[in-house]
């Protein structure tokens, strides 16, 4: 355990909104390849902590160090490019876009082509089989048309834009399959059932190729069977090498899936350790159940 490297270091982060102290010098480390649970009663500052990490809020003091560089104070998109992705507690998909396009927006964060590249189709490259459009039709004019397009692509080359598009579509479909929602690819995001929307958010976050995935109550509103499936998905994500930070209320899920747990209460960290330790920690029990009156 000891040789595992620190991926994310939350160092004395304080966040104040006027007089309200939402986070009070919170510090914890997140190791490469683990699943860390972040729990606490409602209003403890869990989501605020996410927001401070992903650049939505700028910490009043303290800093967040990710992968060796300070990310606190950077813009949200810069933090995403450096490798932190997240989902939202209240689902925030792009409702009018199709599910696939939602994931494609995620893949776009690793792409280079901007307006001129897409407009003029430059730069181009020749002679790579995997860049060429597929010929899928069995026969007839469809096949001739697709063959025509393929030979045109062979002759004129394929633009970086199209390479990226095709690779992105492949990757997005793979990720949707990974999250179990590939059937919904062409549906509008807002028409998806609730559970699929949650999974789509995870797929979209994974598409940005994160080193750290932050899940904000991914199981909210799930039934027990769906929670078990989600636990499996989170473990699968960890097994692909992505570190996971998980906010969750459901204790069974948290205990079942996390390697370590950090407990917040009123913006302060009150416990940090293995699930079993945390569960028996009197401070944690007090925070969740209240302290019996001494008198």
């Amino acid at each position, binding site marked *: 355990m000891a040789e595992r490297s620190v991926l994310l270091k939350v160092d004395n982060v304080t966040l104040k909104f006027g007089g309200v102290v939402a986070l009070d010098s919170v510090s914890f480390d997140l190791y490469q390849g683990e699943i860390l649970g972040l729990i606490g009663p409602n209003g403890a500052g869990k989501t605020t902590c996410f927001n401070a990490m*992903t650049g939505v809020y700028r910490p009043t003091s303290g800093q967040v160090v990710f992968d060796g560089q300070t990310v606190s104070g950077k813009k949200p998109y810069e933090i995403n490019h450096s490798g932190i992705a997240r989902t939202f507690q209240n689902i925030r998909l792009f409702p009018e876009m*199709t599910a696939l396009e939602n994931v494609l927006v995620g893949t776009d964060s690793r792409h280079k082509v901007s307006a001129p590249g*897409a407009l003029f189709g430059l730069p181009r490259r020749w002679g790579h089989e995997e860049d060429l459009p597929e010929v899928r039709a069995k026969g007839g004019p469809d096949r001739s048309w697709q063959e025509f397009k393929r030979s045109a692509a062979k002759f004129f080359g394929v633009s970086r834009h199209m390479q990226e598009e095709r690779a992105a579509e492949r990757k997005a479909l793979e990720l949707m399959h990974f999250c179990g929602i590939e059937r919904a690819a062409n549906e509008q995001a807002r028409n998806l059932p609730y559970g699929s929307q949650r999974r789509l958010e995870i797929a979209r976050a994974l598409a940005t190729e994160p080193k750290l995935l932050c899940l904000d109550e991914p199981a909210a509103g799930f039934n027990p069977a769906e929670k078990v499936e989600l636990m499996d998905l989170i473990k699968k994500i960890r097994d692909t090498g992505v570190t996971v930070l998980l906010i969750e209320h459901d204790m069974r899920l948290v205990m079942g899936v996390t390697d370590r747990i950090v407990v917040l209460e009123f913006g302060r960290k009150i416990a940090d350790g293995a699930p079993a330790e945390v569960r028996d920690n009197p401070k944690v029990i007090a925070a969740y159940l209240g302290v019996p009156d001494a008198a």
Partner: protein
Amino acid sequence: MTANENTVTKKKKRSFADRWNGLPGWSRFFWIMGGVIFLFYLPELGNIPGTNLEIPGLGFLRTDVGVGGSDWDSILFRCAVFVLIALGLNVVVGLAGLLDLGYVGFFAIGAYSVALFGSQQSPVVKLLRANFDLAPDWALAWSWCILLAIVLTMFSGVLLGWPTLRLRGDYLAIVTLGFGEIIRIIARNSTITGGPDGITAIPGPEGAPNAQNKYFSILDQKWWYWLALVAVLVVILAVRRLENSRVGRSWLAIREDEDAAAVMGVHGFKFKLWAFAIGAAIGGLSGLLFASQQAFIDPSQFNVNLSILFVAMVVVGGAGNMAGAALGAILLTYLPERLRSLGALEFLPERFQDPAEFRYLLFGLAMVVVMILRPQGLLPSKRRARELKDRAQEVPVNG
């Protein structure tokens, strides 16, 4: 059982867009080519070219059939120019979701860039001649004016966007509204722009307007329409490419949820600036065509009403959908003119008989009706479904 029912209802609901997307690529290609040929045929609408024969019924659609109708070719040209504007504004309002109420500013900058640098009469050209040892009849060639108009409007788009794109929603709308007025007032009050008198002798593709012009003359507007149509087709191709690229997706993501987009790695400011610059360039291009065809512009042609009209076109037609925006532009340009020559409103008091006279009332009415009955516009935007069915199953199972 339920699955069967689902497929049945889905079949019933198959819309035109679904059917269109279901067509094979080659078939779509031929339909589009047919449509383009029809658009080029439009000036002759009702006649069979090369003969004296008529196609019965079609001629009824022309605006010059009745008494007091407008010249059909110039209405076509105006439709094409407004379609161009609607396409440009659609990028800003429809795709990126930035309400721009000062779009007429870019239209004016495009018009003034060809007027100020291309016209023999313009103060700028005279100034340049005096200071830079140029020929006494020097003026910038029309083809260079196109480039200049696009560059200038893009630049002004960036200039407007840089400080203001930090604003959102209504605040942005108010600032852009101000921008449109600023451009008009500068044009009116400064001497270098010809002031309220405007600028005459604005050149076209064949140079300064004169009686010897073979194609782009004042009497025959056909070639002007064809020129504008080519511009429209080029812009449609360009915007389509952008729409289905990283840029287009970023615009939609920003429109839908800017904060979530930022967290997903979308550099919002950059892509909003691109939307402004590209929208502005298209607006500038249409302004240039407008000024060249008119051969004369003055600041009063670029008032705030026009901005509102542009937004109305996009919103009535369907924001976010190019076909919708184009339809809105065509309807709001063509219908008043067609009704004018119809003579169908003779039962009304005389002052209401010409719909072109009270078009803004009609537009307002149309807006209200559309907003109540079809809030998404006449042709709502619908994201294109991709052909993935067979491929989704090929994807290997990940462990």
